[in-house]
């Protein structure tokens, strides 16, 4: 039987209870695997990630991380739980008043009593792992977007967390950086024995590295499967997303009760012409 690091049972969350962003979601994240959560913009992927990291608590349902129900934990217990958790933010979220070294060493200094010489070596190892050894003295403003994201990755793995959460790690990267990042995630997951959750809408890069995929639309999980199953599936929602079709079950337009033609007065014009 698989050991699940994260178990979500019928979780619903919204800033206002009558406007849920994530609706009645249930999923499992098995240990040692890379699980992707995919879906279009605004489908609730990042919110789901924030539910796992304990930044939000569900309005209904349960979110269990490392076997603990997030809803019942106090703030200090959540902070304690997060020591086993790393998160890579969409744009890195590096501390802009600190050097690369200080960023990567941040959690080591905060949570351990290691001497400086050891911290220096760990920082060097983590930066080497992301291919950025030698940038210790640089400020975040001096780094490119891709480099900043890799420094943020080095920072998030500084304490060798058991669970890694990646929020859109491929957004805005050139094809080379994108593949490098994807391989890095795979390599780190295997080498450090981590469990990874990847929120992304990049199909191509994700299918190469993930073990399981959940598809989200309008705050709900609409499909799930392994990369092979996803490639072969005839599920119209998955097909539209994987093939990037313009028309299909995913509605591109904002759901509104207003009618564009009526709003622009086009119906009257039509009548005049006909």
């Amino acid at each position: 039987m698989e050991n699940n690091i994260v178990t979500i049972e019928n979780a619903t969350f919204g800033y206002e209870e009558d406007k849920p962003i994530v609706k009645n979601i249930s999923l499992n994240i098995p240990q040692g695997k890379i699980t992707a959560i995919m879906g279009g913009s605004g489908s609730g992927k990042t919110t789901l990630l924030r539910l796992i990291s304990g930044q939000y608590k569900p309005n209904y349902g349960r979110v269990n991380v490392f076997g603990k129900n997030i809803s019942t934990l106090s703030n200090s217990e959540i902070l304690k739980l997060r020591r086993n958790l790393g998160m890579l933010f969409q744009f890195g979220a590096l501390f802009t008043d600190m050097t690369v070294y200080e960023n990567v060493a941040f959690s080591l200094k905060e949570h351990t009593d290691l001497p400086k010489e050891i911290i220096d070596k760990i920082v060097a190892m983590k930066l080497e792992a992301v291919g950025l050894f030698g940038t210790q003295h640089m400020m975040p403003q001096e780094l490119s977007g891709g480099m900043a994201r890799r420094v943020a990755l080095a920072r998030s793995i500084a304490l060798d967390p058991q669970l890694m959460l990646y929020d859109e790690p491929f957004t805005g990267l050139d094809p080379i950086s994108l593949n490098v990042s994807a391989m890095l995630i795979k390599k780190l997951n295997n080498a450090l024995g981590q469990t990874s959750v990847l929120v992304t809408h990049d199909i191509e890069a994700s299918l190469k590295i993930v073990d399981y995929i959940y598809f989200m639309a309008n705050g709900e999980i609409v499909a799930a499967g392994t990369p092979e199953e996803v490639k072969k599936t005839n599920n119209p929602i998955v097909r539209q997303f994987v093939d990037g079709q313009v028309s299909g079950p995913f509605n591109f337009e904002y759901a509104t009760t207003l009618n564009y033609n009526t709003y622009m007065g086009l119906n009257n014009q039509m009548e005049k012409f006909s």
Partner: protein
Amino acid sequence: MRRIYNTIAVIGNPFTTFILHLGRITALFFQILINLTYSFKNFRLIIKEIHFSGVRSIVIITVSGWFVGMVLGLQGYNTLERFNSVSMLGSVVALSLLRELGPVLSAILFAARAGSGMTAEIGLMKATEQIDAMSVMAVDPIKRIVAPKFIGGIIAVPVLSLLFNTAGIWGGYFVGVVLLHLDKGTFWSQMQSSVNLHDDIINGLIKSFIFGIAATLIAVYQGFIAKPTAEGVSLATTNTVVSSALTILALDFILTALMF
């Protein structure tokens, strides 16, 4: 009937919002107090904040103090001359600065220079997810960011106030003694005989300390509640300066009524 309800809601809304903010800011104050130990253990963080909010405000504080002192010297001289009491100029300048203008103006200038900076820094950290990142890294942002800023602020304001007073007194001296040829000995001796250490200097410092708490607390609170957008941070920065100035002036009235 509906119109009456709406009118009551419109009138009541600012009051309920004010009470809500007051409650939240009090909760933040207690959270800071709980986390003070961490800041004192990491004293370099406090030093950094004293440098940011205090040392970098020295120029604006001393220059402003100097000009305020000069204006007091001029106005005081003209007024006292009518009553043949120009010898009292030293006392007038010193008492005005030590009791009122020093603590109040230095705290307002601190809010405008350093408080707005604190709000913008925290607001931008929020907008760029740095606060979230810190929290996910199991470090409480109140402990790591807010508490050192708070301590730095409440140390800096009384010291800045003393600098303002000193620069102001020298400004008054410059106008009274150097420009208007008042006797130097009279200027200082009158000041020495009328200024009381406890009533004037210590009370002024107590005022500064309380203004420092208010200005710093408002600055960090506004940063934390800022909307994570360019407009949100800009609005929060403005709110810091406006709220701090009004709070300092209101507190000044209360403290003056209690102290003097």
